[in-house]
Structures are given as structure tokens and as C-alpha cells.
């Protein structure tokens, strides 16, 4: 379960271009939920997702993952949370282009604190569960958008995190591929994982169990 309480995010605090992107956001997402975060462009969706993914800070408020307060932890602890609890799918996939699909999926395993036997096998299984096992040896630069998205998802789930966060996972994909990716998320959700998807596509949002709408830095 994750819980955020009155989160305020200010970009460039105390500078001339200071900008408050979130003005006190509160919400709770239970384990196993599949949630869509929607809103207009510039509403603060990505900002919120990045905070949830522990790759951005915030000025005030609290963020709990499974009842642990995620604030002012050591860099080491944050890294561990990102590694073990969170699978993040970035908007532009964020793959290492000249790594193969398999190498990309192995990155979180390589940074894991746990001793993982047979990393390769584990990465292959993740690729299999997103249906592109056969592309394992292919460099990511040679993959299509949909295939890249699958690699990104495989990488997000390889460490078996309790939640998977995705920023516009279908934004760059055609309708057919989008549908396939959504099927994949639903499958992952049915296996018990919490899924949080940022989107402005209502079609996508409606396939999720719950919709959170953000407007102008607030939940509406």
C-alpha cells in the first residue's frame, strides 16, 4: 500500500523561475490496484509519478510505502527502494540503446543488494512474460517502439517489485500495440502487482480499476 499526504512540489525553489507543480496532493493506493492518473498537459502527472518512483524530491508532505515513511532517507536506502519496491517505465522507455534487450533487463539485477543466482535466466523469464523472449539478443536500437516498451516493462518487473509505475506507456504507440501493452499491464495486475499508469488517453484510463484526475497540481 502506498499513501501520500499533502505533497507539495516546487521546482526551482527560491529562484526566479520558481514553480509550484503540486499544491498538496493526498491519496492512497492499495496493493493490487490498477490506477490511472489523468489530467491535462502540465497538470503535474509526471511530477507526481516521479515522486512516487523516488526519483524526485518534494518540499512538504509525507509519502509512505507499506507504512514506511519515505523521506530524508540515505541515498543508499533510496536506491534500494527504487531497486526492490518500484518498477518504473519512463515515457521515452529509458533504455540503454546499445545494450541488448537482455542486458537492459539485467540492469536492476546487477544493482540489487540481494544475491541473485542465474540473473540471465531471471531476465529471460521477464522477457518471456512480456512476450519478446526471442528478441533477447537484439540491441535496443534495432527494436520498434512497442518492442522497446515491452523491454522497459520487462525491466520494471524483473526484480518483482510490488508496484509498477508507467508514464504514458501508450503515448508513442499505435492503437493496436497500445491495446497489447494494456493487456500486458492487466495481466501483471492480475498477478497481484499494483499498477499506476499516467495517461491522457481516456481509453487507456477506462481499462484501469480507478481513475485519479489531476488538474493544476491538485486532485480533482
Amino acid at each position, binding site marked *: 500500500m502506498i499513501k501520500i499526504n499533502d505533497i507539495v512540489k516546487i521546482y*526551482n525553489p527560491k*529562484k526566479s523561475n520558481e514553480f509550484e507543480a503540486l499544491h498538496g496532493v493526498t491519496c492512497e493506493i492499495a496493493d493490487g490496484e490498477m490506477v490511472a492518473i489523468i489530467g491535462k498537459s502540465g497538470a503535474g502527472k509526471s511530477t507526481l509519478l516521479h515522486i512516487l518512483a523516488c*526519483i524526485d524530491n518534494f518540499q512538504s508532505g509525507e509519502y509512505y510505502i507499506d507504512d514506511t515513511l519515505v523521506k530524508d532517507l540515505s541515498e543508499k536506502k533510496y*536506491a534500494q527502494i527504487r*531497486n526492490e519496491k518500484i518498477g518504473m517505465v519512463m515515457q521515452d522507455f*529509458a533504455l*540503454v540503446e546499445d545494450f541488448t534487450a537482455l542486458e537492459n533487463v539485467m540492469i*536492476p539485477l*546487477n*544493482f540489487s543488494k540481494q544475491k541473485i543466482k542465474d540473473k540471465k535466466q531471471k531476465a529471460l523469464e521477464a522477457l518471456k512474460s512480456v512476450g519478446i523472449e526471442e528478441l533477447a539478443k537484439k540491441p535496443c536500437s534495432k527494436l520498434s517502439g512497442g518492442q522497446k516498451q515491452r523491454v522497459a516493462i520487462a525491466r520494471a518487473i524483473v526484480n518483482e517489485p510490488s508496484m509498477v509505475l508507467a508514464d504514458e506507456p501508450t503515448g508513442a504507440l499505435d492503437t493496436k500495440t497500445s491495446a497489447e501493452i494494456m493487456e500486458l499491464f492487466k495481466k501483471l495486475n492480475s498477478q497481484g502487482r499494483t499498477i499506476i499508469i499516467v495517461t491522457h488517453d481516456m481509453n487507456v484510463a477506462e481499462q484501469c480499476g480507478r481513475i485519479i484526475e489531476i488538474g493544476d497540481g491538485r486532485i480533482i
Partner: protein
Amino acid sequence: MMLFITALKEFKRHIFMNIVTLIELAVSIILVGVITTAVTIKYKYYGPFRDVYDSNGIYCRFIYAADDFGQPEQTLLYGEQLFPYLSSPEKIVCSNVIKSFPVKDGEFINANCYSFNDELIDRYTPQIGRGRWLKPKKDELEVVVTENNKYGWKKGGYVELDDGKGGTIKAKIVGELKDKQYIAGIPSDNDGNNDFSMFVSYIDSKDTDLPMLIFSSSQLRRYGFDGDACKCALIEYPDSVSGEQLDNDMQTLNLLGSLYTTELKNVRARSIDYFMLQLSNYLPLILVILIMTFISSISIAALSARQRLRDYAIYYICGSRWKSCVLVNLFFSLIISGLAAIGAAAIYHYIPKLPKSVFATLPMTIASDMWVAISVILLIAVYILVSAAMPLIIIGRNTPKEILTGGNNK
């Protein structure tokens, strides 16, 4: 360990560019080594005697021919025996030439025999192939000989020396002098230079087949031997000595048979001129290489920094610490410099095997001394600093999130 493996992977990824960097760095290391050697190689004939050159005093060189044609009897004084004739000398660093011959199978044989006083032996060690340099404190009489000499003298053997009184004394051979080297303490006759090189001479078995023997003069004294005469000396005076006294003493030395006499301050001035000249000849080259390494590693680092940073940001999202990414980068630079150093060593090792003509014009030697170490380390430090600091500078301004989302907060 993980970081190191990641760094290794980074190396493999841009293998072509990395190899270019590597070769460039290796060549720079060799060049810097060669140039530093060229600049500093002669310093080891000056440095050990610097305290003496820095003081008031006199350099003198005596001529003494083994067959002794008509030199005044006084020239047959060994270094310390000059003291009573001089006003207030403090110490003397000198070599003496030994007048009597070695004896082999009951016969006199010819060799260039010298004795060095303790001030000289303690300050300076020539290159020894096998064995060691003289230890005047030892009881047994010692000698070093040139390697591969025609009399078959070897480390561990003995040399018999005519004691001038009808008998012989035996000296144990404790070391073999390397052939083809400059030795301090044996004068060259290029007095014209008027610098430290007067006190240094080159030995080469091609020039003479006579072996060189060096004894300790203090040991010889303990054996009651006094058949040696001062060959050349640096005589140090206290600061209080007057110019007049020095002038007088130089006169005296001339009367005693010194062929060339000059004040140490002249020698010091000319030597410093020499080193400054070397430095001004080569320093620009070293600077050019340093700057080239600097620029090329900056540009290569800048080229790859953007991409590397993106990759590190990805690692960050996947659970690496941002700090580790800096470390990966550092390891990466270390791997390159390590390999370049090995490469440089390999290339340097290979150079002598190339046809002579290729490198005939270049003084391709690298001394293994402090100076070379310092300049090579300096070079590598510049490289590591630049290549590892480059992304760091960028990292300092951007968070991984900003790098990945292109978010700008400038």
C-alpha cells in the same frame, strides 16, 4: 566489485573510441617518460653533490700519468693530504688515482685504478650490474670492477694490488660496474664546460679494454696503503672563507699540480644554466603533450558524457546510487589509464627490438627514477581528472530525472 564490472562493460561498449584514447594515452606516457628522462638524466650527477656545489669552494683536477713523467713530487698526495696546504677547507669530495698496479700470477697488469673517498662513495652510487657498491665501513678491503673485463675479475673474486712496499694487498670484488655509463667522481677533460660534467666521465669498453677498479680510500688507509694521488676534488670551505683565501688556495693547488682549478660557484652557475637550458628545451614539449592529452580527453569525455550520463540516469532509476555512477566513471578512467600504462610499458619494451635505424635519431630511453614517475603520474592525473570530472561537473547541475526527462531548471 559491481561498479568495477560495470566500468569494464563501459569500456567494452565504446571499444573503438576507448582504444584510440588508450593508444593516445600510452604514447603520451612514453613521450613524457622519454622527455623527462632527457631533462633529468644528468641531474643525478649534480644532485648528490648539490650541498657542496652550493657552498664556497674549489673544484680542482690533477693530472697524474701512470708512467709519471716529470710531475712534481707533491702531486702524489691523496685528497685528504691536501688539507695542510690549504687555508681552512671543511670537507673534500674526491677521487684518487692509484699509482701501483694490480698483480696477477706474480706479474703486474694494467688497469685504471681509482680510490674514492667516503664523501664521494656515500653521496653517489654508480650503476652496478651484479653485486653492490662499496661499503667503506666494512673491515675487509673491497673493490668494484667493470663488468666483463679482460682479466676475468668477477664479483666474489679477489684483486691483488701491489702495495708499493714489496708486497700485495687483496681486495674482495663486491660489485661489477655496468659498462657504458657515466660515473661521477672520475673527471672528464672537458674543463671547458666548466659545469658538473667535469666531475663525470663516460666508461665504455669499446674505448678501452683496460678494466676500471674503484677502491674505498678509507679502507686502503686502514690497510696502510697510501700509493694514490688526488685525481679530482670538490673542496668545500666554510661560509666565512674570503675570496682572497680561495684565490690563494687555488694558487697553491696549481703549484701542487692541479691542471684545472675553478671556484665551485662558477661550476654551480654553469650547471644551473645547463639544466635550465634542458628544461627550456623540453618543457614546452611536455606542456604540449599535457595540453593535448587534456584537450583530447576533454573532447572525448564531452562526446560521451552526455550519453554516459543518460545511461547512468537509467542505472539510477533501476536502483543504483548516483554517487556510484561517479565511481563507475572514475573506475572507467582508471581502467583506461591502467591499460595505457601497461601498453606504454609494452611498447617501450618493444622499441629496442625494432630496427635500430628507426629510432636512431631519438634518445629513446626512459629512466626509472622519481622524475619520470612524477611526470607520468602527473599526466595520468590530468587525464583522470578531466575524463572523470567532466560528467561530474554535469552531474552536479542535473538530477538523473532531469537528464532523462530533459527537464531544465536553469
